């Protein structure tokens, strides 16, 4: 898979195109939406999926059962060579279609309800406070990514799953490999296998000697009863681990940078103790930043018409959630960051049966992180010129590599 078929005799730009502005999707994709067209776009491996950008079309693609999330299907518009490994090691909810998807998802739903996630808010607040303490006690300038964003996201996922925080370097490095755009399928599969083996072993330990955590509860409830195999629960934990920390960490750091660029909106958050303000900020950041920057991919298993366009069985599609989240028909002036708007219809968590399982907890983390940072560090400022920042343009999940700040 490392030797991709070159897209020959074509001057068409490959999807995803480069961004012209760090806070906006590539102009070529925005124009697709403005022109109300649905082009086929070449991607890295020579496949030419349809590109859907309008809010309504994207919701249909992501919720219609005639589109499959099974990455092992021939012609699937994989976002990278590494993504092919997701179909096999181990197959998680992300690549399952119904009825399997809903059957397994249902077994773990009770762990991710709104109330359950709300009940973790004091834990999140404590972790946020501790991370900020460490930043403030450390050298100046400090890196908000390494000192605050990653520790918050990583601590929460460890806390939730019951995996030792001491093993975070293993999770971090293997997740980076599994999500990389530069590795082969085999390298990504090896990283995933290593994580999976680790987690399956942890499942076996918790099954014998349960604690108060996700893996223990699921092992006692579903593995002992036979509803889930060790492999499936290990895969579930792997999904939560890899999907749960990188996204949240990138949203925290990039969101803080967006707030620093909009001092009035930062001040509004800082000066309010109304939890609804922090909630609005988090929703608008999810909409405006939409860090899943390569779109959500699917493949049609039957002919299906979307927004007047006939997609044939076997053809791939890309649902460009980052552009759909700025659709003026749904959000008005979508290119503007406006933390007073009601943004909850955004598709940053996806849509349809696969919509983010951990979204309620992600919301609590983002609300607590943005509010905590704004209020605890009133003099927060960027310690380098903006054009010195390194953005994650070539990664599955967008963000900044470092965010040097002073206060």
């Amino acid at each position: 898979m490392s030797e991709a078929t070159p897209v020959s005799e074509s001057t068409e730009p490959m999807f995803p195109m480069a961004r012209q502005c760090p806070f906006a999707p590539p102009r070529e994709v925005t124009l697709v939406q403005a022109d109300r067209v649905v082009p086929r776009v070449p991607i890295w491996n020579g496949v030419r999926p349809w590109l859907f950008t309008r809010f309504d079309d994207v919701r249909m693609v992501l919720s219609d059962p005639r589109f499959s999330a099974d990455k092992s299907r021939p012609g699937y518009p994989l976002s990278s060579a590494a993504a092919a490994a997701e179909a096999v090691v181990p197959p998680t909810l992300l690549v399952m279609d119904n009825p399997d998807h809903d059957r397994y998802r249902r077994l773990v739903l009770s762990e991710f309800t709104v109330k359950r996630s709300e009940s973790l808010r004091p834990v999140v607040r404590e972790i946020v406070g501790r991370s900020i303490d460490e930043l403030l006690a450390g050298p100046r300038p400090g890196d908000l990514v390494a000192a605050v964003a990653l520790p918050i996201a990583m601590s929460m996922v460890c806390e939730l799953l019951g995996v030792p925080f001491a093993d975070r370097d293993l999770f971090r490095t293997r997740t980076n490999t599994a999500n990389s755009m530069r590795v082969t399928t085999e390298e990504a599969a090896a990283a995933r296998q290593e994580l999976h083996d680790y987690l399956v072993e942890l499942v076996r330990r918790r099954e014998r000697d349960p604690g108060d955590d996700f893996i223990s509860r699921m092992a006692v409830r579903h593995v002992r009863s036979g509803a889930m195999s060790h492999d499936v629960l290990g895969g579930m934990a792997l999904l939560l681990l890899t999907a749960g920390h990188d996204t949240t960490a990138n949203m925290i750091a990039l969101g803080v940078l967006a707030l620093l660029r909009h001092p009035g909106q930062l001040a509004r958050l800082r000066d309010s103790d109304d939890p609804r303000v922090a909630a609005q900020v988090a929703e608008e950041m999810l909409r405006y930043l939409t860090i899943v920057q390569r779109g959500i991919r699917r493949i049609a298993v039957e002919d299906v018409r979307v927004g007047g366009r006939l997609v044939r069985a076997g053809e791939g599609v890309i649902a460009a959630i980052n552009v759909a989240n700025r659709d003026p028909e749904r959000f008005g002036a979508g290119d503007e960051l406006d933390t007073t708007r009601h943004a909850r219809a955004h598709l940053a968590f996806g849509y349809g049966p696969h919509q983010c399982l951990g979204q309620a907890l992600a919301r609590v983390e983002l609300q607590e992180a943005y509010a905590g940072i704004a209020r605890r560090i009133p003099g927060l400022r960027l310690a380098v010129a903006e054009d010195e920042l390194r953005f994650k343009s070539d990664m599955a999940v967008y963000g900044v590599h470092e965010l040097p700040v002073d206060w």
Partner: protein
Amino acid sequence: MKVTLVRDRCVGAGQCVLSSPEVFDQDEDDGVAYLLCEEPLPGNEDSVHEAVDLCPAQAILVAADGNGAS
């Protein structure tokens, strides 16, 4: 307004609970949404419409008084 929730479709995203906590909750044991109130007060109707729109699984149906579920 009459609200119907199709439990078999629910994927536990919790959007309805965020939109309209007076009308929807999630079962502590299985995480699936359920109705606190099938005929919400007029003051809650907007939030129920939002829940219908945001539900990723189209599991919520509403009918105006006197009509069948749409």
